[in-house]
């Protein structure tokens, strides 16, 4: 694992010595960094190997990918040009993307990425930048292009990383949520909000359905994509207006179920790693986890070894995910 929580001075030294870095930190900290081979997104929440979950507006989470890659390019996209993100990924390598939360590009990517040309043909991993929860509505999430010094609150930054010939990149996820035993829920349009839901073929008010069935909205909706479980997290249930908002869009035709309870995130996480994953920590180049897992599972001070990294407003493993840990492995072949 090459992810560490560093001081601004340490990151400045790393940039000065030509390291290639993926950074996460508070806006004020990131603004103090010199130009170099790095991209960054704003967020002050991290999981560290020493302290576990933590919040800091002075420290920066630095992922040093210098030894893993043969070369990098940094590309700015907007909500339209981002449709080329898979096609333009390096033929042998991976693309690392950061998008500011609530930007038009974030919303467009969330809705449209599964239909972008060449979806899945090349690895795309990354995250949605955010702010300290006390700064919601006061500051905007941003992304930083270290080479140009640009600071963007609209658009997306992608580091296109080419790997050495004998290396290969693979993206994985750890999602502790499983489909519960309740109704199958479907929606009639692709959207971040829903007024109606189809419950076993019957059209119902989704807000009323949630209230009547006492659904815990800290637990996401879960869809089964050919064995990959994909979450949609609840943002708000407004019963008066009859609207349910999500942190990622629901898609029409996909069959969702409300998730089973995860009583102890860290314990379940450890059990899942033991039972399903064959993770070798030295192969993991990057990982990040969701702010909702951090909050709902009270991860401050708790460790999720071997995974560390930023705690984000959305995770990207080919497409936008919620309440999911995503990671990038580099291995020999």
């Amino acid at each position, binding site marked *: 694992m090459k992810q560490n929580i560093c001081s601004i001075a340490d990151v400045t030294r790393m940039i000065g010595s030509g390291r290639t870095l993926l950074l996460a930190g508070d806006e004020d900290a990131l603004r103090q960094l010199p130009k170099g081979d790095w991209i960054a997104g704003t967020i002050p929440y991290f999981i560290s190997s020493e302290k576990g979950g933590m919040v800091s507006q002075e420290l920066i989470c630095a992922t040093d990918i210098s030894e893993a890659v043969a070369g990098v390019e940094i590309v700015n996209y907007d909500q339209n040009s981002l449709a080329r993100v898979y096609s333009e990924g390096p033929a042998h390598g991976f693309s690392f993307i950061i998008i500011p939360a609530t930007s038009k590009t974030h919303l467009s990517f969330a809705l449209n990425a599964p239909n972008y040309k*060449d979806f*899945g043909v090349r690895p795309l991993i990354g995250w949605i930048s955010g702010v300290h929860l006390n700064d919601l509505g006061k500051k905007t999430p941003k992304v930083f292009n270290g080479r140009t010094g640009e600071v963007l609150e609209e658009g997306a930054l992608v580091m296109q990383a080419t790997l050495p010939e004998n290396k*290969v990149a*693979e993206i994985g996820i750890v999602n502790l949520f499983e489909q519960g035993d309740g109704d199958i829920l479907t929606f009639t349009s692709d959207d971040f909000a829903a007024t109606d839901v189809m419950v076993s073929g019957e059209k119902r008010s989704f807000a009323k359905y949630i209230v009547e069935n006492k659904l815990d909205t800290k637990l996401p909706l879960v869809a*089964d*994509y*050919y*064995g*990959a479980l994909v979450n949609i997290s609840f943002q708000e249930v407004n019963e008066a207006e009859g609207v349910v908002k999500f942190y990622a869009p629901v898609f029409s035709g996909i069959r969702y179920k409300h998730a089973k309870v995860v009583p102890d995130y860290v314990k379940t996480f450890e059990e899942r790693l033991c039972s399903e994953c064959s993770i070798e920590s030295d192969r993991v180049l990057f990982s990040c986890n969701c702010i909702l897992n951090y909050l709902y599972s009270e991860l401050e001070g708790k460790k999720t070894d071997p995974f560390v990294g930023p705690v984000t407003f959305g995770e990207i493993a080919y*497409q936008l995910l919620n309440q999911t840990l995503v990671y990038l492995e580099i291995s020999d072949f």
Partner: protein
Amino acid sequence: MDLPSKTHRTWQDIVTGKKTFQLKFLASKILLGRLTRSVSENPSPDNIKACVDQLYAVFEKNAKIPTVQEDITTIFG
């Protein structure tokens, strides 16, 4: 093992849901979640061909990845 050509019947059977496999490669699973839905809504030959093309491209371009190799073995033996 080598990747069987796009004309191999099994590709079509996967996107139409006639055959299902427990796959490991994340991109192909997410993609198949969408493609199988697309084919169930529109089972025309043109759509099936388009879906096979997409699925095949994901396997072909990622053929060096260990889990893709495992999935190819799972599917084609």
